[in-house]
């Protein structure tokens, strides 16, 4: 079995398999990624870095494409709330 990685999604501790993207981890939790211009919570759409729906704040840096970034030990992910 692949090793587990611990990260925080909105301050909640979550464990995922090594290699899991941040977008996949967020979808697993049914957590939204960003809030749209008119206030809808959005999740990943294209899964390949084109649609920009999966933008989140990672380790304090806003607007990262979560589908292209693998989860890392100790990572802090914050979604729009």
């Amino acid at each position, binding site marked *: 079995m692949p090793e587990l990685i611990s990260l925080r999604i909105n301050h909640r501790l979550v464990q995922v398999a090594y290699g899991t993207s941040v977008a996949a981890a967020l*979808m697993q939790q049914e957590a939204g990624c960003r809030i749209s211009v008119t206030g809808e919570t959005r999740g990943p759409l294209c899964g390949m870095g084109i649609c920009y729906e999966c933008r989140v704040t990672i380790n304090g840096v806003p607007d990262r494409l979560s589908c292209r970034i693998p989860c890392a030990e100790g990572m802090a992910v914050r979604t729009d709330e």
Partner: protein
Amino acid sequence: MNSNQNSTFDVVVAGGGPAGMAAACAAAGTSRVAILDENPELGGQIWRNSVHALESPLAQQWRRKIDERNITFLAGHRIFAAPERGLLHAEGPDGFSEIRYNHLILATGAREQFLPFPGWTLRGVTGAGGLQALVKSGLTVANKRIVLAGSGPLLLAVAAYLQQHGAHVLAICEQASLSRLAGFSLALLTHPGKIAEGLRYRGALSQVPYKPGWWPIMAHGRKGQLRAVTISNGHRQIEISCDLLACGFHLVPNLELPALLGCEITDHGVSVNALQQTSIPGVYCAGESTGIGGLEKSLIEGEIAGLASSGQYERAQALRFKRSHALRFATEMRRAFALREELRHLCQPDTLVCRCEDIPYERLNGHTSWRAAKLHTRCGMGPCQGRVCGSAAHFLFGWQANSIRPPVLPVQVGTLAGTRTIPHTNHSLQ
């Protein structure tokens, strides 16, 4: 490669999917070759690596071929400008870089065609290939109830993949009618490899209802999360409760980079001749970006482009029959999976078309061009730069997305700042 490093290659291949890999291998015997790709690994979308491993033998074979040759792979590089002939500006993991080439092969691949319908912005509605990519990157779908909808062979491939990973695929709704698909099945008789592929999916999916002539008309949710989808065949409607709805209306070529370089583009993709040469001297194009046609077409076009760009014209011409065979298949496929008229009328007035700027259908309807719609509504001017809504608007309203200006992608401000420090003295190349 270090930032601000100036690198020159005989052949630069933009895109590391099947077409790009085949092109690089064919050219590498005689030339100094580099492949650039936005992703960390070669393979494109179709051969994307999975955390669950188990890659297709063909993908492994091509990866080995690349490894055996002296090919530079510039991973994580996004080309955002082509300021002059023979020069590309890219943003990589280490910042900005200038890449010079004598010959350029565009193998930019394709993305999914998305179409707006009420509820398509709910969480849990994804692309079909999009959902597969997410599962490959670790999303668990075991025991999830999933409906696939849209069009094209990808729906079957994705359904089989999801099923293998424990999902309950409740239905595959193919918008093309049964009669269209029957015509396509006949055409397949001249492509035996495709039949085997189809039978394999059919076998894996024997328990899953395949519904030709059905399409999604509304996704229903609670608190922004998908709960069900209503599908229709024009006469009847069925509501299906589901956890995920994966929708892809076949594929559209990635044309931003070819357009930026000034290549002539037709309805189906970049115009090329039998040697894969575009209208711009020294620039070739291969694979899905010349027109959607699948893996075989990508590999053969890539090989031809690689051979031709490195001066091996006879070997390139020897592949012309294989090429026309693959092109015939592409034409048959295009006919079979052409999008039906009803899909143009799924939007309610308040259905969002542009997801970046939240522009509803009613604000777009009535404009006469993509440009006018952009100027008046900001449609297509968000971070995705119209990659999702542009092709949807093209289908809904018939507008062409005709103006590409650098940067073709959102880039870090530092990268753009970095480009200013480099003098552009080589105008004589023009």
